[in-house]
């Protein structure tokens, strides 16, 4: 086992069948999903043994490239709403180390894991060390995108995205939900993404749903944004020339658990994207996972494999999983 035990026990294995296609696979959030070696899903905001490392990674990425974070001016209320909502979720999931309480005319937030105690007043930026979305993004492993609902559509008008899987938040800021997903083959043509958009627009405050997404990443590399494609792209060719042992260590099954929350006061939608990765070597230690992952990869249509960037080494991944 290469990864820390908690990462295996809480890994959200994404395949419910032996084949995979894009679908509007949303379901209510919060229920635990059992796996052969543990479970995942009870928490909307999830902290694991990579917490401090991933927060440091995020800070470094933002320092090097500020375009990974943006807040269009009108999204200010939505950013405060997001911060309060995520603080509530953290306090609910980790009550022994996180708490949000009323404090005089304002609030007091406590995050013992990071040694934070912060008094603040809603709507008053001078009472926080950073703009609220950036402030809370510095305390969660999730990427965050906020969607403004107006004109019968959803606009991605704010966010902090440092662990993008081959897209560019900086380029996409201000685009509609359908436009952002425009490049993905099949999503628009099959109506999957239009249904997802209509579903999101009907979400009511207090409702949280979730869905999963997946791909393969070479190396335990969080930031595979399009901005850095020139750095990680060559790995897709390099991987064909490595030993089997290297292959199993380097190729990761990468899963995104996305939570979709209707923010209560601003009415905007908060999209949380939480990234998990396990190397194939660890996937292979769970026989159900090994067999199913191989089946899905083997059957995956070429256009989907190509869009996910895995078509070059997909066959080798199947052989590797089946040969173990």
């Amino acid at each position, binding site marked *: 086992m290469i990864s820390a035990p908690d990462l295996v026990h809480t890994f959200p294995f994404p395949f419910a069948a032996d084949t995979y296609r894009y679908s509007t696979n*949303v379901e*209510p959030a919060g229920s635990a999903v059992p796996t052969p070696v543990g479970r995942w899903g009870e928490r909307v905001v999830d902290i694991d043994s990579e917490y401090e490392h991933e927060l440091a990674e995020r800070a470094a990425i933002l320092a090097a490239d500020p375009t990974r974070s943006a807040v269009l001016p009108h999204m200010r209320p939505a950013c405060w709403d997001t911060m309060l909502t995520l603080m509530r979720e953290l306090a609910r999931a980790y009550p022994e180390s996180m708490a949000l309480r009323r404090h005089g005319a304002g609030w007091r937030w406590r995050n013992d894991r990071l040694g934070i105690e912060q008094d603040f007043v809603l*709507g008053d930026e001078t009472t926080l060390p950073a703009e609220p979305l950036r402030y809370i993004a510095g305390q969660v492993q999730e990427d965050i995108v906020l969607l403004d609902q*107006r004109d019968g559509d959803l606009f991605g008008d704010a966010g902090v995205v440092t662990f993008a899987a081959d897209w560019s938040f900086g380029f996409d800021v201000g685009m509609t939900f359908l436009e952002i997903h425009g490049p993905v083959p099949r999503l628009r043509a099959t109506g999957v993404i239009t249904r997802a958009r209509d579903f999101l627009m009907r979400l009511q*405050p207090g409702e949280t749903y979730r869905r999963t997404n997946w791909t393969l990443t070479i190396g335990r590399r969080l930031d595979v944004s399009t901005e850095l494609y020139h750095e990680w792209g060559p790995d897709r060719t390099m991987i064909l020339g490595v030993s089997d042992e290297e292959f199993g260590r380097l190729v990761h099954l990468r899963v995104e658990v996305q939570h979709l929350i209707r923010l*209560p*006061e*601003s009415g905007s939608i908060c999209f949380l994207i939480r990234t998990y990765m396990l190397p194939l070597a660890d996937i292979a230690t769970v026989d159900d996972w090994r067999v199913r992952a191989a089946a899905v990869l083997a059957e995956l249509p070429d256009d989907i494999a190509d869009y996910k960037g895995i078509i070059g080494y997909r066959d080798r991944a199947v052989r590797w999983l089946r040969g173990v």
Partner: protein
Amino acid sequence: MNTLKLVVTAIDDTVGGIRTLTLADPDGNPLPSFTPGSHIVVECGGKANAYSLTGDGNSPTAYVISVLRCADGSGGSRWIHDELALGDTVAAGPARSAFAPVLRARRHLLVAAGIGITPMVSHLRSAQTWGRDVHLLYIHRQGRGAYLDTVAELGQHVSIHTERAAFSAELLAALADQPFGTHLYVCGPASFIDDVTGAATRLGWPDSRIHLEHFGSEALDPGEPFTTRVASTGEEFVVDAGVSLLEELERRGFEVPSLCRRGVCGECRLAVSAGTIIHRDLYLTDADKEAGDAVMSCVSRGGADTLEVAL
């Protein structure tokens, strides 16, 4: 749906025909935050009516609603006026948002008649928190103005009328002269809404800048009971109003795949061999729906004849 049980902690009848209720959590806990313009659906003596929330929207200690007594309505408002008392408990659904302020608006022009003032009050409160530019035009019948003191306190640009001609003159002048970027919000009787939106459209307002409050038109409709037959066993049973075909089948031990339970993901699709289908989903295509041989069991329903599912 999570039903809230709320206790009536205050009743205000100072304005004739309008009863204002303060509703709190029985244990004193803060209530969920809500978006300005939201409403709750209250169970009132066997009926379910929607009322706008007029209080503070950030983890408030209470929800406040104002109910106009309708002599010839279905009875819900009469029950609230005549039967409900201090200390009673009412059941209500969670806050639903259908009339939210547009975050990008440079100015919000609120136009209300009568009890239509109620969703505007939460707009005004939120405008204070976020420093929004809000203008209110309100017309009410003499002696029937609600929240007059509240809106005067909350808003800097509030114009209140009791006489139609003066109101209309000011409204037309306002609609013709809003700075680019303003959004319009209208609430009141249906004919009032039609008049105001008609005037706005004639003055060139695009649809994206006009917002109307429609009470209770969201799909809360529990539907009619219908009979279902399971083809493989011949079992026949009634699916009650407020219960989905999926829920009834699950209750009877049938295994039907499901995921979103909202009519979007496609998992709970069942083949239909007979009977009329009332489609309420977002998944099947128009062609699918017309073919009438598949039903999304989590939201869609049967008609007057027996629905036979190939299960």
